[in-house]
């Protein structure tokens, strides 16, 4: 049985128990969000010992070399001596420059980072509020086009961070930011490849960034962006998307509504059905395509399988799955 040394004490790891769970059992409050090896919120560092490879899978090479790992997906067989990374190493400051309502329950948050962040549109950052609450949001901004960070915040029933951003956060206030993280972004290696971008809800944020990044880089292949929502008030940035399509012959915007009647769909100029279903019906042969999937986990999961079976290589399917911490752990209002 492996032992974990932390803050001067030693703990035995239970069977099946992750390092995060072990520390929680010892009543430490380690910040976390997804508990699934995705958001990197709980990242820690080993002082001695070798973290299992699975707990470093999604980290950057530099972070791996420095011994960072994710305790939420860490099930070591050998003893580890670990520490919390000091905040200064990971977090920088960002000042709010804009909070604008985009739709009934999505607002745009723009931040200016105190020290420039080197990132790709579509990656995500972690925001930390004064009381330590941390949440992940994907980047809609494109570094070569704008110098502020843009995030789209969906208001969730009991979402502590999202409600606070919508109701209380003001221009001029500061937040801690960490990142960038994630590998769901435009890769400019083959500018002639067709791209299929599918998202629902605020999953449009990373896709809006990825599409503009690709176009700004001179991408020549066709780019199709399908944005889905159940109700019409969930579609936003429609003017922005349509002018992008007008300015670029190879960019195509397809809004989709799955829960509205024909009259509403027609007024919005939207197609009938869920975004992934419409997209995969339009494009049945995806060999050589690169596919981007952003939004709710069930959509991402099912679209990944459909895209793969339509011929896309798994390595060419990039996903940003929004794990909704508050909804999973607390009942919805």
């Amino acid at each position, binding site marked *: 049985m492996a032992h974990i040394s932390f803050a001067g004490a030693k703990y035995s790891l239970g069977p099946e128990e992750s390092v995060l769970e072990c520390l929680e059992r010892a009543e430490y409050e380690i910040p976390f969000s997804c508990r699934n090896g995705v958001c990197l919120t709980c990242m820690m560092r080993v002082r001695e010992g070798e973290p299992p490879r699975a707990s470093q899978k999604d980290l950057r090479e530099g972070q791996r070399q420095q011994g960072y790992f994710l305790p939420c997906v860490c099930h070591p067989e050998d003893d580890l001596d670990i520490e919390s990374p000091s905040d200064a190493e990971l977090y920088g400051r960002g000042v709010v420059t804009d909070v604008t309502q985009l739709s009934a329950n999505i607002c745009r948050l723009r931040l200016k980072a105190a020290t420039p962040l080197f990132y790709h549109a579509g990656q995500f950052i972690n925001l930390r509020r004064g009381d330590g609450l941390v949440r992940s949001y994907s980047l809609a901004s494109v570094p070569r086009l704008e110098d502020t960070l843009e995030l789209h915040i969906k208001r969730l029933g009991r979402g502590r961070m999202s409600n606070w951003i919508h109701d209380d956060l003001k221009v001029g206030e500061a937040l801690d930011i960490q990142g960038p993280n994630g590998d769901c972004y435009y890769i400019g290696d083959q500018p002639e490849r067709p791209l299929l971008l599918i998202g629902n809800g605020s999953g449009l944020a990373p896709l809006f960034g990825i599409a503009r990044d690709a176009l700004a880089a001179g991408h020549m292949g066709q780019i199709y962006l399908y944005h889905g929502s159940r109700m019409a008030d969930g579609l936003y940035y429609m003017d922005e998307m349509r002018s992008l399509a007008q300015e670029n012959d190879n960019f195509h915007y397809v809004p989709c509504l799955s829960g509205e009647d024909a009259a509403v769909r027609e007024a919005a100029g939207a197609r009938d059905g869920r975004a992934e279903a419409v997209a995969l019906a339009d494009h049945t042969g995806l060999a050589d395509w690169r596919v981007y999937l952003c939004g709710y986990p069930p959509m991402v*999961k099912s679209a*990944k*399988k459909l895209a*793969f*079976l339509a*011929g896309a*290589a*798994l*390595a060419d399917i990039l996903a940003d799955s929004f794990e909704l911490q508050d909804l999973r752990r607390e009942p919805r209002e």
Partner: protein
Amino acid sequence: MSDSLYERIGGADAVDAAVDLFYRKVLTDPDVNDFFDTTDMDDQRAKQKSFLTMAFGGPHDYTGKDLRTAHEKLVADGLNDSHFDKVAGHLQATLEELGVDADAIGEVMAIAGSTRDDVLNR
């Protein structure tokens, strides 16, 4: 013929070329696709990859015990010879599609066939 089977087939590149083809075949076969988990496709692909590396005579750390443990639950759910044969057929078709020569295919199929008793927990 001094090169190993793995080198003749094309090594890691051949595994990369084969894994998506093979995985897509088993996922679209209604006779066997219930046995392939799609909750984590990347994880499942990694498993297919280590299996193919072994079948191609490449470096691997598979043991008969691993194969038994990995398939124990599936056998309890009804995994049998007919499913094994189907999946083996998909492997053969994948190799043919990639233009691997008949001798090498025979060797791969022999390695894959040698795992039958472990996979079926006999």
